[in-house]
């Protein structure tokens, strides 16, 4: 019985590691290809090791323009969707009002609708309204689909919060605004930051909705899509690898900060009369 359980444990772990390998393999290939000097424009095979792509990531300048544009769109969409979504999350968790469940449905729907349908329907609207497609129509679309994810993320943080901390502040004669600024906001902030990071990565990586609403504006995913027909410059893999490393560093930093904050909180509790 024991041997069988041992085997069962190993079996699950073995499959899990194989699947993780399947998930990680393309990343390793992208990182490897970022050091490749391709044999021809349309070749995807590893030919020769070189550092040139990393030394000159902007050798194909229109790619870097597209990256910068994606970042601009991502930042604007992140700020707008985070503000709008956070306000909605507060209303939904902290207030009761007519039509709350209907609104919950409206917020859930964009996450359950195929991107293709959202993309084509916005295109139909912009064309019917005579709005020229470009930078701002992409921003509008991105704010729309990022918002739902922001609401869900902030809502999760808000509804997991201990309400008694706010009640305590009120009992100690903090005004409603003071309570919000000194207690509520700092406690919700990690959720808001997570939502913003999620919104940025969703916006930066979106291809389908952008493709229908970009007109002639080129974002990074659209550049890659166009280049896949003409031959991908190896610098695309440099950007892909760099994104991966930066995101990993961000995740590492936030989890480290979390750990430090926890340690600081423990120190406050452990120090009897001291102020932090």
């Amino acid at each position, binding site marked *: 019985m024991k041997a069988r359980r041992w085997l069962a444990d190993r079996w699950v772990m073995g499959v*899990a590691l194989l699947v993780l390998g399947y998930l990680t393999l393309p990343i390793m290939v992208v990182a490897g290809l970022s050091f490749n000097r391709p044999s021809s424009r349309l070749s995807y095979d590893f030919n020769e090791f070189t550092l040139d792509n990393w030394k000159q990531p902007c050798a194909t300048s229109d790619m870097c323009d597209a990256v910068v544009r994606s970042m601009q769109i991502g930042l604007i969409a992140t700020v707008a969707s985070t503000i709008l979504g956070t306000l909605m999350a507060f209303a939904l968790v902290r207030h009761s009002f007519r039509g709350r469940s209907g609104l919950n449905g409206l917020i859930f729907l964009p996450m359950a609708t195929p991107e293709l349908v959202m993309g084509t329907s916005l295109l139909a609207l912009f064309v019917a309204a005579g709005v020229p497609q470009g930078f701002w129509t992409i921003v509008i679309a991105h704010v729309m689909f990022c918002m739902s994810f922001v609401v869900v993320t902030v809502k999760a943080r808000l509804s997991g919060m201990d309400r008694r901390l706010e009640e305590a502040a009120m009992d100690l004669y903090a005004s409603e605004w003071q309570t919000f600024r000194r207690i509520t906001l700092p406690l919700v902030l990690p959720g808001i930051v997570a939502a913003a990071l999620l919104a940025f990565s969703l916006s930066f990586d979106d291809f389908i909705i952008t493709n229908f609403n970009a007109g002639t504006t080129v974002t990074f995913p659209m550049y890659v899509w166009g280049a896949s027909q003409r031959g991908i410059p190896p610098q695309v893999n440099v950007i892909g690898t760099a994104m991966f490393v930066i995101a990993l560093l961000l995740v590492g930093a936030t989890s480290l900060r979390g750990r430090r904050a926890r340690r600081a909180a423990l120190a406050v509790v452990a120090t009897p009369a001291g102020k932090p």
Partner: protein
Amino acid sequence: MSALAHVPTSAGKPAPPPVRRGRNRLLPYLLLLPGAAWLLVFFALPLVQLASASLYDPAGSLSTGYAMTWAFSNYPDALQAYWPQFSRSFLYSAIALVLGLLMGYPLAYAIAQKAGRWKNLLLVAVVAPMFTSFLVRTLAWKTILSDNGALVGLLRDVHLLGPDGRLLATPVAVVLGLTYNFLPFLVLPLYASLERLDPRLLEAASDLYASPVRAFAKVTLPLSMPGLIAGTLLFFIPATGDYINAELLGTPSEYMIGNVIDSAFLVRLDYPQGAALSFLLMAAILAIVFVYLRRAGTEEVL
């Protein structure tokens, strides 16, 4: 990315009772107004526009303008013209989903129940691929599956592929790509519900002489249902509408409905047909989701 793990859990949880009831009746509406207006104007209204575009006179064109003729025949016409691509979308996503479940369930289970202190690291490894651009990763599969790559060579050597056999530009490549791209969306909610599974329940089952298979069927599987349902939907819905994998890893004979809709709107400029196909896709997905949720019997997930 953590939000994806939250989607099923927070959506299923009933919201706690609100506190500031009646203190300021206008405040919630003020908080909601900008976001709700945005969603109404840029999510709901476009769907109405898409529906009406799908009924335009198909003889019109983008440059000369379309006439609204309530042309309901656009729907059967579009379906007749593109039935292979339409059914292929559902077939490929269904196969990818089965593969995804075979891979994703053990992975989610191992991370939730067996990983111990490696849990967070393994979770990051699941999410990490999503940090790199979706398109760049899909293109990496082109290298992995290429005809003179190591994988095809190996499969030829062991005679799993014929001497001229290939993977790239076949249905296998497209399904593999779909499975790869949407697997994290299946694993995260599954992980979230398997993480809450109390291992003592499995010990109890084993004490009561349940075989591991029986314990899985009677304890683990039912308790992971919310995550399983949310995960399969998060996998299946985007996979059916995807056309990037079919375009980059397949050939026109693997095209899915997304490729057709993309070309209807952006190449052929046939808006009525593109709109009709978009709507058919959404209707079919909604119908499947509805039946699935009824049969799965957990309305609370949504």
